[in-house]
């Protein structure tokens, strides 16, 4: 058994060196060569698989077209931010074979991956479809204030929204101040989750209490964070007794929140995707009377991306997939409310007039928020350290401390 182990190790090391050499070359190939290199290969894509609508789009629309147009077999598997970082670190340490070719990431994950040098690249600027990107948008071209520099390719964009029930809540609050008043008047009917979306809520609150997101631009500043977060946690402590379960327990993730909301335990849920309410009603997770709502103080808008890990076995295939995802057809299909409702990262002005009309004529679903209103309240993400510290401090100061 020891001999087998050694043999495996040796072969893995040799393969590693060979693959690294190859990967470097791939980044410099002309596009046609990349496509032919990828033909007939399999691409393993680690992405969040918790939403059947997203899965249906990827498995039933994207995958067959990749097969017929490029001969690529797409295999989407479950994996989210922290797991992906963790996996890559462990794989590097054990000098193991890479498993994922493409990963769906943004924000903190991108930051952590770059910091630990776990991504392969730069490659994204070589994609032909990248020419149509909305390059003037800071939301698309900067991931939580970090420049992309070709290390990840944009895929879609979303905006944070609250979700409420039009029958149960006839006069929903429209600002954080109004929300505070609403919570006090309706004790036990509001909460936020412990993960990504909940932290987004806290971040939006932080912007609002400190006079706007502009104050936070330009990198992480400790002093600013300390004063701003103190205000956030002060606000929380004020309303905490009126939270669901008196602020002692919090739903783990946004899915649990949807469940609570749909079953009349709380009156608000949240989502990072303003169109999620549409797909969730269709999936039977939320009741048909649900509706999206943006806070007038500003809601976070951000984009999500795809990256290629440092040890991806098939980077060429991954590049072709990323390029396909940026194609106008794929972006349009994704934008349709009946499919996913995920915003496009393309600049409609850069498309042909026929395509442009299609994009613009895509009417928003009545349950969602009209795009104009969305754009008016959109606020960009800032340096990821703010969120990371907010999340850690929330766990320490709020979750761990009994009221």
């Amino acid at each position, binding site marked *: 058994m020891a001999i087998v182990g050694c043999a495996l190790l040796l072969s*893995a090391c040799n393969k590693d060196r060979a693959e690294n050499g190859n990967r470097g070359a791939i980044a410099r190939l002309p596009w046609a060569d990349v496509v032919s290199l990828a033909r007939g290969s399999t691409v393993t894509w680690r992405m969040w698989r918790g939403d059947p609508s997203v899965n249906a789009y990827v*498995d*039933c629309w994207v995958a067959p077209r990749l097969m017929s147009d490029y001969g690529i077999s797409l295999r989407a598997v479950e994996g989210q931010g922290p797991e992906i970082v963790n996996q890559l670190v462990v*794989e590097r340490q054990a000098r193991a074979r890479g498993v994922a070719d493409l990963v769906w990431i943004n924000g903190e994950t991108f930051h952590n991956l770059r910091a630990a040098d776990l991504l392969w690249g730069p490659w994204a600027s070589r994609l032909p479809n990248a020419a149509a990107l909305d390059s003037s948008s800071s939301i698309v071209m900067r991931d939580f204030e970090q420049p992309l520099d070709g290390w990840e390719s944009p895929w879609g964009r979303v905006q944070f929204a609250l979700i409420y029930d039009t029958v149960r809540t006839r006069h929903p609050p429209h600002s954080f101040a109004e929300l505070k008043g609403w919570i006090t008047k309706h004790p036990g009917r509001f909460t936020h989750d412990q993960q990504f979306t909940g932290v987004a809520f806290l971040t939006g609150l932080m912007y609002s209490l400190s006079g706007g997101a502009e104050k936070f631009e330009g990198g992480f500043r400790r002093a600013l964070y300390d004063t701003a977060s103190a205000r956030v946690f002060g606000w929380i402590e004020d309303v905490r007794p009126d939270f669901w379960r008196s602020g002692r327990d919090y739903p783990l993730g946004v*899915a649990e929140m949807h469940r609570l909301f749909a079953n009349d335990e709380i009156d608000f849920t949240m989502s990072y995707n303003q169109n999620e309410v549409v797909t969730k009603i269709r999936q*039977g997770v939320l009741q048909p009377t649900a509706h999206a709502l943006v806070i007038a103080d500003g809601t976070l808008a951000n984009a999500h991306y795809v990256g290629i890990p440092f040890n991806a076995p098939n980077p060429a295939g991954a590049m072709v997939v990323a390029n396909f995802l940026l194609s106008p057809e794929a972006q349009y299909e994704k934008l349709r409310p009946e499919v996913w409702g995920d915003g496009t990262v393309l600049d409609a002005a850069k498309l042909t007039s026929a395509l442009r009309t299609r994009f613009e004529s895509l009417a928003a679903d009545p349950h969602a928020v009209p795009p104009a209103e969305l754009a008016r309240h959109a606020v960009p993400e800032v340096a990821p350290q703010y969120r990371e510290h907010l999340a850690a401090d929330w766990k320490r100061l709020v979750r761990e401390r009994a009221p």
Partner: protein
Amino acid sequence: MWTALPISVLVFSSFGEGWFYPRLLPTHWSTAAWGELVGDRRLLRSLVISVWLALLTGGAASILGFEIGRRVSRIAVPLRYFALTAAFIPVAAPPLALGIGLQYFVLRAGLGGTLTGVWLAHSVVAIGYTTVYFIGVFAVFDRRVEEEARSLGASPLVTLARVTLPLHRRQLAEAFLLGFLVSWAQVPLTLLIGQGAVESLATSVMSYAHAGQDHLASVAGLLLTLPALVLMGLVGSSIRRLAVATV
């Protein structure tokens, strides 16, 4: 009632739509969630993977457990208890901690995120169960049959193949079932060693539940339960023998 209620709830949830508080029954019934079995290839794929993993684990565990249990039973009594205790180690080890400890080795061998790696991890646990089982089986096995065959001139290998194995056909089937179930229901090991690339039916139940997709989680849960119940029924009354091994 106690036994049936949880299963019935899952059945309702998988066939129902619009089942929100305070409704006792879903607003209307539909097979949409079950339709996902065909539509969303994820469910189907996880089912196939689970079946395959469980079959392989059952096979490996029953064969190895048989052989190891047989040899252990030839050890003199005091040391035999040491062996029995040692066999329990993989049974008692919490799968999560076990996965954390072994992940490095699996990755080093290049098996991370592969079916083989997950199968090996499942087998580590399953072999513990089947070894314990067979130690119990061979403890009450009357050796004289083997001895007679040997005295008639049969080699050890022939004795094994022609005498011992056939006598233990049912036990092998039960051990196979044991290994099968251990793999079938396993969650943490699949999560840690499979790294999302290997998704079993059991991990998909958790995944759907965490994503708030209760209908699909129930479909997956029922798919996970029914074969287990059926298999138990088939090998049913002999399960008592399993208990004897631990008692």
